[in-house]
């Protein structure tokens, strides 16, 4: 009996040692630093999930081919373990557990979308695993006191604040009348908070405040109200579907408004799908290729755009660019920490202050990137070809803002 007990103890001790050693092996295998990511490769976010994955892979290849990561006098390379979260937040949380507990991943990359990042963050936080994420902009990610979450992108409430300021500026500094239509989801409602704050700050008045149900693809009633009340600014945010529905119905109903500001213009390929009907729409974006930020890995935005297209066959949307930037942040943090210890790397991440082709990156104590402003571009057409031109901040503007938007009867 005694011998049996000793044997069991012995075997379980060995098992324990083996399992713990496999964990410590998994974060760095040979000369490879293993990062983990659950990304939507199927389901409703699959297109943006693909952009995210391509952005990650593009940066991994670039960093590895340009000398890798130097830690403690040794050179390492990045490698990523991917799982498909099926665009499902429950699944994303499960996979984060699996990456951390089974695969022994000690450094995480974020998934696509605010919703999925929100699902994963409690898991990484509980296990004290640092995560650099590039696609979760919801403000609520930064109000929970997370210590291990770092976001390279601007928060959702910053998306359209600038547009309101711009409208007030164009109105001679006087307050404006605002009509809002926001989808009822975490991201769009955060964008709404930003607009509401900007309206308070500028003394502007909100005259329409519609919350669009997720399943809705008809905005006719909202637009009828806009026609009747004639606001100075119409703000719309409802992902790609919201952007495409708004432009289609604004053009059909000939709604004249001095400024139309929205989100997801590039994700929905607005200029391509709606052509001239989308002209003069003002759009918030995290990044645009014409910005003049630089780094040694990708050069500037134009170069990134060109090389990404050569490899993946399409122009990178900002979802890909910010994903690539996340890897640059990881590399920088490892080298500054000069250690593979996750807590030391976490502390180095918190002290990040750098410029990448995507923009400046510096984290607030809540993990939010506070060094990068949002960009506003306006859809402009020459003949039948429509393009996004940066109009704000003025430092990077490649075109002047057309304001007020010409009436439909004059187009």
């Amino acid at each position: 009996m005694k011998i049996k007990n000793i044997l069991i103890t012995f075997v379980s001790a060995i098992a324990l040692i083996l399992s713990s050693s496999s964990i410590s092996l998994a974060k760095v295998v040979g000369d490879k630093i293993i990062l983990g990511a659950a990304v939507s490769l199927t389901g409703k976010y699959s297109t943006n999930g693909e952009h995210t994955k391509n952005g990650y892979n593009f940066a991994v290849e670039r960093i590895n081919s340009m000398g890798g990561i130097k830690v403690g006098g040794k050179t390492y390379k990045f490698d990523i373990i991917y799982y498909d979260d099926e665009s499902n937040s429950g699944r994303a949380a499960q996979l984060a557990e699996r990456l951390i507990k089974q695969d022994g991943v000690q450094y995480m990359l974020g998934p696509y979308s605010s919703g999925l990042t929100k699902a994963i963050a409690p898991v990484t936080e509980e296990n004290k695993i640092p995560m650099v994420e590039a696609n979760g902009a919801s403000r609520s990610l930064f109000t929970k006191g997370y210590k291990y979450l770092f976001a390279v992108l601007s928060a959702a409430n910053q998306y359209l604040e600038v547009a309101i300021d711009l409208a007030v500026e164009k109105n001679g500094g006087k307050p404006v009348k605002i009509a809002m239509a926001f989808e009822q989801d975490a991201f769009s409602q955060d964008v709404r908070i930003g607009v509401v704050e900007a309206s308070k700050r500028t003394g502007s008045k909100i005259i329409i405040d519609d919350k669009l149900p997720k399943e809705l693809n008809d905005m006719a009633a909202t637009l009828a109200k806009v026609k009747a009340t004639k606001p100075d600014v119409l703000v719309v945010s409802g992902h790609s579907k919201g952007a495409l529905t708004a432009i289609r119905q604004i053009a059909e109903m000939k709604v004249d408004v001095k400024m139309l500001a929205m989100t997801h213009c590039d994700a929905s390929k607005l200029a391509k799908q709606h052509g001239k009907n989308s002209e003069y729409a003002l759009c918030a974006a995290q990044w645009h290729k014409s910005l003049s930020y630089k780094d040694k890995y990708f050069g500037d935005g134009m170069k990134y755009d060109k090389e990404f297209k050569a490899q993946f066959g399409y122009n990178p949307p900002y979802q890909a660019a910010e994903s690539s930037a996340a890897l640059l942040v990881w590399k920088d943090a490892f080298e500054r920490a000069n250690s593979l210890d996750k807590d030391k790397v976490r502390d180095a991440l918190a002290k990040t202050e750098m410029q990448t082709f995507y923009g400046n990156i510096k984290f607030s104590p809540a993990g939010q990137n506070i060094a990068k402003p949002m960009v506003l571009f306006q859809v402009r057409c020459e003949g039948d070809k429509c393009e996004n031109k940066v109009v704000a901040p003025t430092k990077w503007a490649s075109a002047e803002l057309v304001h007020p938007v010409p009436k439909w009867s004059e187009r």
Partner: protein
Amino acid sequence: MVQASLDGILLGILFALIAYGMALQWGVMNIINIAQGELVIMGGYVAYFMYMMGIHPGFGIIVSPIIMYFVGWGLYKLVINKVVDRDLFISILATFGISILTQQLMNFIFGSDVVVAQSNFGTTMFFEGMVTLPNAKIFAAIVSIVFAIGLVMYMRKSKLGRAIRATAQNARAAKILGVDTEKVYAATFGINAALCGVAGSLIAITFTLHPYVGLPYTVRSFMIVIVAGLGNLPGVALSGMGLGVFEEFADYILGTEFRIGSVFLLLVLILVYRRFKLSKKREYLK
């Protein structure tokens, strides 16, 4: 007000067409098709595909029903015929499975981007542009009405139409009298899918398409059928338009967030009222 009513009527006619297919197939086969919305979206993608090939998406109303008829027919032969005489719950499960499968299939083929097809039909304006009617929506309403009337005529006059009606009344009796009910069921499911195809191609030019946006169409047509009652085809058209107008008004007056909620509230009220009326009738009978 005029704008909201007109928008509501045009929207309602389109929904009524989808509900029409659902009522037909529910009445004949006693199957609640959860995949109705997905069939609509699939029909929309047919029109979108034509648009991408450089053909005007308006022609989708001809091509899409033909393709969708065979899709429906195939689905019947593969899945539905195994559940047609079974419990209602099983058919709901089976069609739910079909809906998930078709969503993923469309996602796989067309990607998860939201897409639109441009008809470039322009806009008709009244009262110096205060009331606008997109010609694409007018086109959609006319096409829906033509198809609906066409179907009613077909049901009345043709041999298959009579067989379908006979099967709906009493499948066993129809079988004894020599109707091939298996064929009738397959045709009914096919016709339903074809109607969805027409509606889908109209949605491609009036709204947006996305592989996962089918469910609202299922729910809406389900509601219209419940309000109208099975086998009441003029009722379907009326309740479709009524709900459409009610929806637009609720949105216009109360705000968009109350739009869907108020439609459901109306549904509950109608059902309660009906129950009340029925129980009164029962009292008389007693």
